[in-house]
């Protein structure tokens, strides 16, 4: 079982203060890495034996922790309201989930998660030469969040159509803004006198 503290030590040796923090324990340990050293950190982790990139995703923290409505007065029977979480350092967090899998026995030798905070569309360097499935994963992050990856060509949409404008999983994209290719933008509502049959 790979020990996250040992991995922290190895990364500190390789990139110094580029790895900023280690949180969590065991399989849920998360290493936070700076944007400038992410490529080197992932190369070091791959060399340490993490042969499978399980997942690469992004989380948008715009508006995180802001509570628009006032907190209800504390009452023993109401569910516990948590204290407001700490403000995140940047807006987007890329999450790389790595697995060290022993092909002969089928057992996991360790898992580690690497978190990379980015503040704009310049995401990080592409890792599709380290793990080929990063190709589609990075395209998906670009498609839904607009985070770009340098060092690779061919960054195009994968789940949405090319005519789509915007990145829907960002927090400032309203869920019901529609961009249909054909057909009306909104279904006509019968109560407003709209006719549901399409024009002849």
């Amino acid at each position: 079982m790979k020990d996250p503290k040992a991995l922290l030590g190895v990364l500190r040796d390789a990139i110094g203060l580029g790895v900023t923090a280690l949180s969590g324990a065991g399989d849920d340990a998360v290493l936070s890495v700076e944007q400038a050293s992410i490529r080197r950190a992932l190369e070091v982790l791959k060399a340490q034996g993490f042969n499978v990139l399980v997942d690469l995703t992004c989380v948008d923290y715009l508006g995180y922790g802001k509570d628009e409505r006032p907190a209800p007065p504390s009452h023993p029977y109401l569910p516990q309201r948590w204290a407001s979480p700490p403000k995140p350092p940047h807006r987007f967090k890329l999450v790389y989930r790595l697995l060290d899998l022993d092909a002969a026995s089928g057992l996991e030798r360790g898992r580690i998660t690497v978190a990379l905070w980015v503040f704009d569309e310049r995401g990080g360097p592409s890792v599709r030469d380290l793990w080929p499935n990063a190709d589609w994963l990075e395209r998906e992050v670009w498609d839904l969040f607009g985070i770009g990856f340098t060092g690779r060509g061919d960054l195009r949409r994968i789940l949405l159509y090319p005519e789509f404008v915007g990145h829907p999983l960002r927090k400032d994209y309203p869920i019901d803004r529609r961009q249909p290719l054909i057909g009306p933008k909104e279904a006509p509502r019968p109560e407003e006198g709209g006719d549901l049959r399409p024009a002849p």
Partner: protein
Amino acid sequence: MTENGLLELMPGVLATRVDDAVGWARKYSLFPYPFVTACCGMEYMSTSCSHYDLDRFGAAFPRFSPRQADLLMVVGTISHKIAPVLRRIYDQMASPKWVVAFGVCTCTGGFYDNYATVQGIDTIVPVDLYIPGCPPRPEAVLQGLMMLQAKIQSQGLEGR
């Protein structure tokens, strides 16, 4: 003419109106084009297989070319990305043709009221039969199909 429109001229020969005969022929020989996208496809498979059996309605053989099919069954959610493809397939079918909106995602968009889903395929193609349900039980599909058959019978020769 008897009350169901049939007159037996001699043993083995029936006379009826052209509209009734054509309607009868069309409703019992449907060639569905199952445009299957999502979960409703599971219930479509269940309906067409042995337990619920679509074959006894004459709609056994799916035709996977729109030129050869006359019943377009839109099964499952239609996203905006596939909507032009659906419209093109509908345009490629020859008259008489009927469209079944199978599942609530095709009727109204279902509970996917968001940027990616067409809120009802009747905004793109004209629909003859709506079968709501998420997914509809095979019994509901069979009832819907029988209602469609009644509609086809009543349409007669000129179709739509």
